[in-house]
């Protein structure tokens, strides 16, 4: 186990060392809300961060695993490609944004726009998610054990949104859908991977009504008025 104390080591030195490593375990102490901690990892390393991190922690993450024992600020695991990112606390806005693959686990709450434009990542949130979560989500699974804020899944394409609690409101073109056996199986696997104890049948699935996919000439008046059908 290699320990980096951010009171003594610069962010650039830390990230360079993590990029140079090909395997092994690393611990980061005293992050004090610094930005871009452990971003750009691309190997099978395991990194534990003790304390709160700032923006873009574990951004562009591939392979390997990052665990934050604390809270994270905006853009946690933004554009994650593969591997695992887990935080024991809460994340502010845009957690898992644009992620293509891998697993993001937030044990606390996630703020606004969690999973915005997600493209294949799986995100599991132990608490609640904020407004405009999964905005324009394209692929992947979002699992929320708590409640969802306003405009869930606005303009989404093909992601599955599984919410156990209440939903303040659904965004444009997002609708409740049937929870079929294959979804229950997906949920069971994701909950197990995230280490969350919940009954898959307690969740409601939301997805795209697919009415915004194509331009319809009948909608031209609404389009010109700035609305959507």
């Amino acid at each position, binding site marked *: 186990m290699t320990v980096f104390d951010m009171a003594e080591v610069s962010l650039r030195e830390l990230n360079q060392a993590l990029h140079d490593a090909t395997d092994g375990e690393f611990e980061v102490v005293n992050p004090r*809300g610094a930005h871009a901690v452990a971003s750009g990892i691309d190997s099978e390393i395991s990194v534990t961060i003790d304390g*709160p991190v700032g923006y873009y922690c574990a951004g562009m993450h591939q392979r390997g695993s990052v665990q934050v024992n604390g809270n994270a*600020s905006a853009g946690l695991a933004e554009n994650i490609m593969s591997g695992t990112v887990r935080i024991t606390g809460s994340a*502010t806005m845009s957690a898992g944004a644009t992620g293509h693959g891998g697993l993001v686990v937030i044990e606390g709450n996630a703020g606004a726009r969690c999973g915005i434009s997600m493209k294949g990542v799986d995100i599991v949130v132990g608490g609640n998610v*904020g407004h405009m979560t999964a905005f324009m989500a394209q692929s992947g699974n979002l699992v929320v054990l708590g409640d969802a*804020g306003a405009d869930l899944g606005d303009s989404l394409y093909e992601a599955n949104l599984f919410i156990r609690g209440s939903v303040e409101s659904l965004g444009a073109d997002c609708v409740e859908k049937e929870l079929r056996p294959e979804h229950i199986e997906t949920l069971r696997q994701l909950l197990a991977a995230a280490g969350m104890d919940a009954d898959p049948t307690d969740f409601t699935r939301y997805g795209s009504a697919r009415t915004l996919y194509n331009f319809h000439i009948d909608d031209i008046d609404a389009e010109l008025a700035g609305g959507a059908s």
Partner: protein
Amino acid sequence: MCGIVGLFLKTDRHRPKLGRLTAAMLHEMRSRGLDSAGFAVYGEGTIGTSRITVLAEGQEPDWAPTAAALETALGEPVALRPMFDHAVFETTGDSGLARQWIIDHVPGVSVLSHGRQIELFKSVGDPDLVAEKYDLASRSGTHAIAHTRMATESAITTNGSHPFVTGPDTCLVHNGSLSNHNQLREQLEQHGESFQTENDSEVAAGYLSWRLREGDTIDQALEAALCDLDGFYTFAIGIENGFAILRDPIACKPAVIAETDDWVAMSSEFRAIAQLPNVDDAEVFEPEPARIYTWSLEAVPA
């Protein structure tokens, strides 16, 4: 970009070091705006007096004749604390009358703040140097708000720096940009508000000032602001006995709040909060969009 910080001390424990804690928070937000900075500190002054902070931008005048003339005008003693281009006049007289007298009789001087508790300093330049020049670190008190500015909507001047005053003991810092400030400025001018800059945040301050003068509580004024202000904003607002936070309904501009038994802190980024005492015990959360958060002291010295 811009960075904002607010620190509200619920108990006596850290009040002697309010300024030092606020300066450390401001330092962490330097990278969000190096154009200018400012801070407002509450609860430092002598009980039973009012204070008026004034600015003569680009000058370092002899403030003593102004203090003497103000004393004559008010018929009450006026103590003077000059600080370069700023000065604080402390008096047992009425701070509103003092403010108007200075506006009417002292050309080239702007009134930055007036009230029983507030003192306000701002300047162009590196936030650390601004904090050092106006001695933020040595100040005590109950609460403070501060701002680092990356200018977008108007020129880099001291008067265009935050905080902006919104009335007695009330001021505002803003991260964001308002899109209807020109129209709103015209409307507010018709209601009797006057503006010193082309700055959008000053319009937000003027708006709250107008609502408060019309008799709104701070909560009512902010509720109305949600309807009438168009644009992006995270506001931190200092009031005589507390502070308030409001984000627009989309909430693109960042904000984080941390609260312990002793203090409430708010900032654009957590790293400004990370070194506060007992931060590990704090409840940390992101303020929700379009929700008004307020904290107030139970008893304020009269």
